[in-house]
């Protein structure tokens, strides 16, 4: 082959490769003048069938297409009517829901009691539904009383019924369509009652949704919603700066100035439901098995300094944070920093300088820096720390899931249920694989709190649980209620929810 031919062939090949990349726009194109909102998330759904995909990002996307029968006002923590317009508790185990009339799924199928029932029945019947385990624990049966009334019976007294019905996998699916296309068909082409209709899914690239003009809460202020998967945070920031996306969640701390310094962009800070904490081994054979040592760990840490380092948040000694029921006012917005007391406790406990292994990772904002600061604070009062900051994969595979953590480990835990039962579950003996913490009276208290229907009494139970666990026994030292950010183009009008939940039915754009 002559060299000139070789060059020509190479150029042709390059052009062909570029062209097959699609120099032309995709088949779907929004009409001219349509109000388009493009958001960037680290990943997309793996399935549009809500109970099969429990990641938080997927739940956000599902919720923009489908609705649950009850919903949570994420600012106040209160339940609000959604597909059910009202409800009443018939007794400790049974709740009756009156469903809204006149709501249709995007394919025209009517929403009614049969749809609500079939959605929950399907979860209860299939062990492979990821949400099966959670739902099967509390729902005994759902009955359609008439076309627009259902009764949900719990396994036992269930104060958190509404919380759970508004939780992961709660989105109602249309039974007729589900039967027609099957779960696999639904997983790739969903039909809901939500603010946006499904248009297109390009796996690992984008999901395109279109406003539902008949949405029961009114047509969204966005005509087309494009949800893009951009795994790398710095690329999401670059897209936001360039105008390729209008909104992104969790702007890395080091990029805040870039966003705030851009006249077209704004940075919105909000408190999440997550708490950064340290878990400690309490069982025999560990240096931290002595309560005084664990107390010294708490006294040694300056929470205010950590909050400053993390770029925001609220110091807290409890994981039950506002607006969740039972958050303890004496434990929230508290620092508890006292180096002198920490040194005294170490002396009293006879701490002889045995090293404490401290496992952490870098997944949360500024986690590495915060971990190093904590290690410094602990060493400042006399602890010897063997600090191990691992990448998230190694941390999960080798430490977290196999419960191979040693004296100290760092974690951030959320509570998207907004109910205290989630926040205290890891204080149960059966769930104490990472702390060895086990007290039968605590188990009993947690079980009673989980079944108590009277709100005030329930609150008192949770106060007691928090006081015992977080100020006396300390299997966990909670550090700070975490803050997160949203980077937005100023043309977008949207207020992020306290738990960062991305529901865009109320978003507006120009």
């Amino acid at each position: 082959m002559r060299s000139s031919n070789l060059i020509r062939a190479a150029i042709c090949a390059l052009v062909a490769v570029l062209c097959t990349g699609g120099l032309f726009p995709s088949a779907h194109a929004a009409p001219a003048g349509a109000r388009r909102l493009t958001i960037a998330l680290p990943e997309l759904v793996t399935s549009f069938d809500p109970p099969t995909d429990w990641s938080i990002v997927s739940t956000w996307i599902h919720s923009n297409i489908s609705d649950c029968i009850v919903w949570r006002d994420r600012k106040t923590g209160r339940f609000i009517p959604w597909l059910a317009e009202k409800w009443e508790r018939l007794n400790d185990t049974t709740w009756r829901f009156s469903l809204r009339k006149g709501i249709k799924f995007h394919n025209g199928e009517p929403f009614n009691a049969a749809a609500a029932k079939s959605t929950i029945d399907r979860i209860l019947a299939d062990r492979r539904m990821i949400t099966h385990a959670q739902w099967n624990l509390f729902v005994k049966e759902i009955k359609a009383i008439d076309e627009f009334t259902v009764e949900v019976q719990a396994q036992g007294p269930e104060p958190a019924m509404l919380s759970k019905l508004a939780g992961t996998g709660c989105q109602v699916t249309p039974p007729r369509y589900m039967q027609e296309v099957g779960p696999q068909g639904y997983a790739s082409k969903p039909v809901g009652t939500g603010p946006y209709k499904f248009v297109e899914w390009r796996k690992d690239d984008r999901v395109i949704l279109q406003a539902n003009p008949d949405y029961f809460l009114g047509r969204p202020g966005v005509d087309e919603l494009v949800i893009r998967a951009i795994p790398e945070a710095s690329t999401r920031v670059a897209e936001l700066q360039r105008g390729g996306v209008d909104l992104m969640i969790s702007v890395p701390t080091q990029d805040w100035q870039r966003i705030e310094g851009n006249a077209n962009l704004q940075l919105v800070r909000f408190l999440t439901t997550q708490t950064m904490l340290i878990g400690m081994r309490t069982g025999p054979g560990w240096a931290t098995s002595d309560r005084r040592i664990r107390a010294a760990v708490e006294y040694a840490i300056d929470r205010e300094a950590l909050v400053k380092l993390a770029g925001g948040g609220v110091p807290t000694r409890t994981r039950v944070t506002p607006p969740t029921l039972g958050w303890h006012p004496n434990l929230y917005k508290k620092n508890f920093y006292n180096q002198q007391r920490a040194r005294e406790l170490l002396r009293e406990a006879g701490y002889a300088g045995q090293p404490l292994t401290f496992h952490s990772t870098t997944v949360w904002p500024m986690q590495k820096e915060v971990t190093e600061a904590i290690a410094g604070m602990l060493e400042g009062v006399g602890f010897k720390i063997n600090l191990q900051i691992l990448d998230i994969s190694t941390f999960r595979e080798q430490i977290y899931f196999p419960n191979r953590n040693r004296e100290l480990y760092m974690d951030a835990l959320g509570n998207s249920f907004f109910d205290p039962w989630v926040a205290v579950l890891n204080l149960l003996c059966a769930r104490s694989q990472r702390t060895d913490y086990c007290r039968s009276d605590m188990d009993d208290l947690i079980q009673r709190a989980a079944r108590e229907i009277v709100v005030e009494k329930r609150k008192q139970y949770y106060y007691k649980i928090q006081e015992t666990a977080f100020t006396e026994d300390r299997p966990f030292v909670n550090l700070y209620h975490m803050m997160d950010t949203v980077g937005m183009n100023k043309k977008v009008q949207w207020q992020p929810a306290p738990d960062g939940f991305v529901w865009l039915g109320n978003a507006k754009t120009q």
Partner: protein
Amino acid sequence: MQRYLARRVLQMIPVLLLIATVIFVVIRLKGDPISQLAPVDIMSKEEIDDLRRAYGFDRPITVQYLDFIVHLPRGDFGESFRYRQPAFPLVIERLPKTMQLAGAAVLIGWGLALPLGVVAALRRNSLTDLVATTLSVLGRALPNFWLGIMLILVFAVGLAWLPVSGSDTGWNLLLPAVTLGVGLATTLTRLIRSSMLEVIRQDYVQTARSKGLSQRTVVLKHALRNGLIPVFTVFGLQVAYLLGGVIIVEQVFAWPGMGQLMVKAVLTRDMAIVQAGVFVFAVVVMASNLLVDLLYTFLDPRIRYE
């Protein structure tokens, strides 16, 4: 030639079987996949066991292995936990995007390396040689991840010439392909340079020159063609590194290929996807090596496969 081809393809089978076995073992060493399937922190042991049974992880490892090997020839790597769909089609549907990116990177890599390597060899110890050698060392030292982000900041955000990420248009391919191609070009440039230096001293090149052929003909027709044989050998091996780079570059540029799928699958212990993905990568690497071997016959007609 056909017999040679058939023999090479048959030789691939035990290698692929070995690769499949290694994947099967290694992925299971990483831990219990059930922990990624559901929120184990709020599930009881019985529920976790139920889920384990539902996915067949309660069976003896030898039974699981035999089941895996028996289904392998049909491309059945099992069902993805995350997608609830057979893993192989999920991998295959992303393969064209990955191949497109890798293909563009190969073209850019060769497009840069060929002129730089040849000119550096012909003008040995000149300023051009110094620049080409320095650039190739510098390019080799740049991690894909960093280079990708820098290219985004300069060409997409700063100059606004190219899109930041995604795969909407052909222009989206340029920055990720350059990121990958630069790495390949640096290796090839140095190889082409040294190979050409060796070849241009050979008698047949001197003969070609003494026949009065033009410098262009001597270099392109006589020297380069022979000089490329060892370069192609290394290029065949570089394909594996290139595919490794694709995984990172797809993450940086949100390119929806196999790389993104694989990273997520590894992080979530989605065994079926990891098994299928690594297997497909192995097939691609082996096929590339076979193709390189066949290219030798084009470069040097004396080479014959029987």
